[in-house]
Structures are given as C-alpha cells and as structure tokens.
C-alpha cells in the first residue's frame, strides 16, 4: 500500500475563509511537487453552518481524494468537532482556537489550544484568523517551506490585504513555534 | 338670415370688377382660398387678412384645416369690408377663388360668383389616393379631366397658372402659394409695396427674398396673360404642357395554382370588383376578367398562395384597352 498519504482538515463555519487558506496551503505544496487533492464540505447557506476543507497530500497520485484518517485537524469552530473527531488518526495533531473551540472531547491525539482568532483581532481583523491558523499549522506540521507558503498567500491575496495577510501568517508561525516548545495537552483539553 | 341680404341694397352695380377700394362702399369682398394640406393656404389667407385689416377693413377669416395634415382638403374664407357679419362665404358669393391645387379649384367653382367671379388656379395636380379607386386597365384616374380651356366656360375671368413650376424654377417649390398671391394682388387694388410688406411679415426670414421674387413673378405673369387673353393658358402656356399623371398601360392576367387553392372563399368575397368565383371543383377562377382591375387584393389575401396577379405591360393605351376587354 503506497502511503506517503497525509490528510489535513481545516474545519469551522462558512465565511471563515477555510477553503481559501486550504487552497493556499495546497498551492504551496503543489509548487513543491506534491500531489494534492483539496475537497470541501459546506452547507447550502452562503454564510454560517458547518464547513470544512480537506487536503490529501501524496507523493504519487492521490487515489481517494477525501479524508479517511486525519493527520492534522485545525478547528476554528466547535461545530467542526463532531463530524471530524471520528476521522482522527491515533496520535493526530489538533490545533484548536482557544476562544471559538474551548473544549475538546477525549481521545488519542495531541492538542494545541492557540489564540488564533484573538491574534487576528489584535492584528486588526478577525477575518484573518484563517491565515493565522495556516501559519500555526505550517509551523507545527512542518509540511512545506515557509517561502512557498508566503508565495501562495501573496498569489491569492488582493493587494489591499496583502500586508495584513502576511502579518497574520507570520503571527501564526510564531504561535506555532511557541507551541512546539510548550508541551501539548495529551488528554482532554 | 336676413342681415346679409339687407346689405345688398348698397351694391354699386357699376362696379363689375372686384376691388379693395370698392369693397369699402359695398358689401364685403369675399376671397376663398383652397388647396390641400401643406401647400400654404392658411399663409395666403393670413397675409391677405392682415393687409385688409391694415387698410381699416373689418376682416373675418375662417378656415378648415385641422384634419388635413398633409394631403387633405384645406380651405379658408377671407371676408373684408366696412362691416362683416358672417365669417363664411355662401355658395356663389365668392368674388375671388384662389386655388393652390387644380382639382381643389374645380371643386370650389360653385362658390364663385357666376358673373363676376375671378378664378386664379395653380395647375399643380395632387392626385389623392381615392382617385385611384378605379383600377381598370387603361382607365383614367378619377381625377379632373377638364382642361383649362374648358374651365374658361364656367368663369367670368380665369387664370390657370403653373405656379408650382414657377416656384420650383426659383428654387423653392414651397413658394408656389406666393406666386398665387402675386396673381391675386393684381385683382385687388392694394399697392404692391404693401403686399410685399405683408409677405415679409408672414414668411420665414431667410426665405423673404425668394418669396418676394415669387410674388413678382405671379404679378408679372398675370399682366402678361391679360395682354394676350383673359382666360390664360392657350397653346404654349405652362398648364397646357402638363402631362396627365403617367398611366402605365397593362393588361391583367391571373395565374392560379389550382392544387394550392383550398376553397376558403376569401378572394371571392373580398374582391372589390366581385370578378372571382369558385368553380364546380371549388377552385377559384376569374369569372369576369373584364371587371378585374389587377388590384391584387386576391393575391395578397390568399392564405394558400394560389393566386398570382400579372400586370402585363402593353405597348400603348389602345392595346391596354384591348387587353382589358379581351
């Protein structure tokens, strides 16, 4: 069984920019020669409601493009816990927003509660919480080169938001790097 | 009404010719101006009314033009004198009839005083659509066939003047009515200068020059005509040279495609000359070819495209007449 397969989910609610940040990560990975499949689940409402975007990353062609066993889970809303929790691989890493997703269920996983949305608010807009999360994920998962990710963020950001998004990415990296040195909670957070 | 007839007692019988001066002393001078919409009838009557008023006459003018737009009958009554009661001229009471169109002139002839009335008429022909109602091959239009010479018999004094062409030659066809004003000015004794003043007030500023030329042209033409004969156009006079509207000589032939005819009867019932019928097989046929005028109504209204009307041109009118009866 060819398995360089890595699965990442960014879960939250509609309107948080989950699909966009997943796409940025996917672009960065694609630039590095990885095969990526990025899928999404959303509800018919344009805003609000459960939403996630999944990445399946592989050295070869991705056979089944949907999540089956998550290596990484980023939670930007508690709504995303229920559909995602059963998919976690044993020992998977979970990054949860301290404010929007304070409580996590029991399970065999490593969890980091990070102030993603609060950091975004401090940067000037809660709307960049997705980019902060992206930075934190990239730092913790060490899944792609930082330069490639910055390039992907640049490519997908309108000029007027570029500085904000790059700041958010850097802030996310900082949060992630701090978390590496800090112990992660291994039981219920 | 009694008032007009009472005023008759004041007639100066010696006055045979109408004149503006004479009008002061007798019953009103009656000038009837007729034509078709767009020719400028109202302008002529307004200029005359203005002039008469400026000379101290009481003036009454009435006109019908509202429905005429372009092409319909327009007439205007202008009456002036010491006192004018009625605004309209009764039949046989017009001193002067000015017509801007030939057939309109003839139509109003009964309004002219039989003994003394003066007829001034443009020979311009404007053929109205209903003059074409009879579409028989070679048939004349239902437009006046009278020649200027024949009209002479009906009027005391008559001038058939090709005013439209004269105006055209001046470069403005629309000044034809002013040519006629020029003619009119010779039978009313207002000074020519006053006429020109009146004209200048009633025509658009940039056309004053051409209109004054037209006025003088009309005046001179009458003078010249008077020197020869009272009833103007004889041989060589412009009106005599006017050809009747061209009649294309043709014969009618109906091409019927019997397989396409579905016997709906529309052509039979809607033919204005009732010359079609359905035969024993219920197929249309031309039953009375001599009555067919080639109007094409049957062709146009046949839902089945079964009829085609051919108007075969023939060499001349005689042949056309032959074709029609053949």
């Amino acid at each position, binding site marked *: 069984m060819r398995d360089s397969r890595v699965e990442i989910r960014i879960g939250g609610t509609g309107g948080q920019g989950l699909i966009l940040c997943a796409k940025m990560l996917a672009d960065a990975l694609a630039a590095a020669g990885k095969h990526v499949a990025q899928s999404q689940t959303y509800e018919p409402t344009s805003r609000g409601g459960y939403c996630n975007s999944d990445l399946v990353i592989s050295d070869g062609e991705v056979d089944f493009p949907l999540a089956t066993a998550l290596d990484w889970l980023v939670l930007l809303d508690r709504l995303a816990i229920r559909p995602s929790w059963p998919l976690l691989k044993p020992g998977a890493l979970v990054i949860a927003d301290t404010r929007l997703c304070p409580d996590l269920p029991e399970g065999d996983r490593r969890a980091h509660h990070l102030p993603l949305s609060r950091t975004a608010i401090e940067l000037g807009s809660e709307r960049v919480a997705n980019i902060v999360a992206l930075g934190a994920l990239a730092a913790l998962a060490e899944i792609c080169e930082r330069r490639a990710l910055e390039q992907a963020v640049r490519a997908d950001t309108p000029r007027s938001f570029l500085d904000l998004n790059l700041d958010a990415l850097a802030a996310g990296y900082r949060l992630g790097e701090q978390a590496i040195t800090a112990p992660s909670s291994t039981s219920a957070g | 009404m009694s008032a007009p007839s009472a005023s008759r007692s004041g007639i100066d019988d010696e006055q045979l010719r109408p004149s503006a001066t004479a009008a002061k002393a007798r019953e009103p001078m009656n000038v009837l101006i007729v034509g078709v919409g767009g020719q400028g009838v109202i302008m002529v009557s307004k200029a005359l009314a203005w002039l008469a008023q400026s000379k101290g006459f009481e003036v009454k003018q009435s006109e019908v033009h509202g429905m005429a737009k372009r092409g319909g009958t327009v007439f205007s009554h202008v009456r002036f004198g010491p006192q004018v009661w009625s605004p309209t001229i009764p039949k046989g009471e017009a001193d002067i009839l000015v017509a801007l169109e030939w057939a309109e002139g003839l139509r109003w002839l009964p309004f002219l005083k039989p003994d003394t009335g003066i007829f001034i008429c443009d020979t311009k022909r404007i053929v109205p*659509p209903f003059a*074409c109602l009879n*579409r028989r091959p070679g048939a004349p239009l239902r437009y006046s066939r009278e020649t200027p010479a024949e009209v002479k018999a009906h009027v005391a004094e008559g001038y058939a003047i090709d005013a439209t062409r004269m105006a055209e030659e001046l470069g403005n066809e629309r000044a034809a009515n002013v040519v006629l004003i020029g003619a009119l000015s010779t039978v009313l004794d207002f000074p020519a200068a006053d006429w020109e003043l009146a004209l200048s007030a009633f025509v658009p500023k940039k056309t004053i020059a051409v209109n004054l030329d037209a006025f003088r042209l009309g005046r001179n033409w009458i003078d010249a005509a008077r020197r020869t004969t009272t009833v103007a156009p004889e041989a060589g006079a412009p009106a005599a040279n006017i050809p009747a509207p061209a009649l294309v000589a043709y014969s009618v032939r109906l091409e019927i495609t019997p*397989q*396409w005819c*579905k*016997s*709906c*009867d*529309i052509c*039979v*019932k*809607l033919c204005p000359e009732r010359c079609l019928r359905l035969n024993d097989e219920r197929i249309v046929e031309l039953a009375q070819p001599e009555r067919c005028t*080639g*109007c*094409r109504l049957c*062709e*146009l*209204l*046949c*839902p*089945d*495209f*079964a009829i*085609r*009307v051919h*108007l075969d041109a023939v060499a001349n009118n005689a042949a056309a007449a032959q074709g029609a009866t053949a």
Partner: protein
Amino acid sequence: MIVDSAAAFDVRDYLRQEMMPHFLCPGCGHGIALRALLWAIHEQGIDKDTLAVVSGIGCAGRLSAYIDANTFHVTHGRPLAYATGLALARPDLHVVVITGDGDCLAIGGNHLIHACRRNLKLTCLMLNNEVYGMTGGQVSPTTSESRLTSTTPHGNAEPRFDACALAAAAGASFVGREGTRHVPKLKELIRSGLVHPGFAFVEVLSDCTEIFGRKNELGSSPEMMLRQKSELRPSAYRDTVDTPFRSNDLPTGILTKTERPEYGAAYRKAAAAQRASMAKASAAKSAAAPAKGTP
C-alpha cells in the same frame, strides 16, 4: 401605391415549393401572415442564405418549413431561446422567430419577457389566433373572454393577455400589431421590425376559421376577416372623440419604438475591450520581463 412593390414580389420565390400546398386549414390567416413576412424580407433585400427562421410548435410553428431559408423547427415554447443562441453565435445571420400565442405567451412566456429585456437583434412574429389550433382548439392566453373553446365549454372566464402591452412592459424596444386583413400595412410593420436594431416584437392578428371560428359561430373565413377590420383601428385614432363608441383595446401599428443598446453588439464590444486590455497587459509584462532579469 401597393401595385409597384407587390408586382416585383412573387411569394413563390421564397417558398419551398416542393412542400406546397401547405398544411394549414382553408382560410387560415397564418398563410397571409407568412406572405407579409416574406414580402417584407423581399423588400428589405435579405438574402435567403443568411436568413434563419426559428419557429416553435403549433400551427404557427409549422410555417418555417415552407420558407426557402435556413429553418429550424424547435421545441414548444423555446424558439426565442434557440434563436438567442443562434443570433449570439452567428451575428452575420438575420434571425426571425415565428411563434404562436400559446407557444410565445404560455409555455414560452418566460423567454419572451427576457428576450424583450435583453434586446438582442431578433424579429419575433407572434401569430395570434386566440386558440391552440393544432391540438384541437383549447383556450389560449389570448382567447377573448366568454369565447368557447374545447376546454372552456361554458365560455372563457380568464382575462386575456395583451401581448404587445406585455412586451412593451418587459422592455421591448420595438412593439407593433397588425391584422392579416391589411397585408401591405402588415408587411410595412414587419419590415420596420426587420430593420429595427434590437428586439422587435410583432403581433399578427390572424384568424383560426376552421376551429375557433366555427366553435364561436364567427362565420366564414371572409366574414371573420371583415370583422377583423371593423374591430381594429390604427393607434393614431385612439384618442379621437369616437373612442367611447367603439372598443379599441387592440390598437395597431407601431406601438413602441425606442433606442436601446443592442445586446449582441454591446457584448461583442465589451469582449473586444477585454481582449485589448489583456493584450496590453501581456505586452507590458513581456517588455518588463527582461529588465527584471538583468541585475
């Protein structure tokens, strides 16, 4: 005078003669409407090769088969939608739509109002005979009140559509109505529609004599046609004093004529501008590229 123009026009030059006689009932006004259309096309000098006629389903829809042109007999109610695609894809063609009252106003009503709104250059000829003739005489959106049809056995209780008012309200830039009784006038109206730079809607009042006429005892074909004349008057007479004495809810002539941007031309213009700005941008990019690489 009508004689001159009519003499030069032989309708058979525009018919597929192998298809004749056509399938319409005796006295059906649609044949007359077809003549008026072909006459207008002839007068306008439209080449048969670049003429495309799209028609729907029903008696009116069948007319396209008789026209010697590029003809498309499509699905019920959809000729305007097919014609929209054809005219947008092929602006070099002259596209005419023939449709009936049911085809155009009932099943195809949505396409009509949007065609009016869009203002793509198309001429839409709606033949209104107040009835679904081909299916046996059912009530249609234009059936007059109290008329008998095979689905209104006690008289039609629904109010009818005024198709021209509908088209005008939907934004059509050219709207006109005429009866088949007045062929030269109808031809003139259609011709004005053909030259109109935008969507032209022409309603033709046509007689269904065999089915609608018979059911409502409207008399023979000629009688129906004569009544059509008495019931119609030019729109110019609308405000004259005798209006109260004669009903005039179906004015004829050109009822609406406005200048609006034609959709196809507007679209092509915007597309050309988009291409030009792209070409400019890529030229600037390629000019800038070597400069970037030098240091």
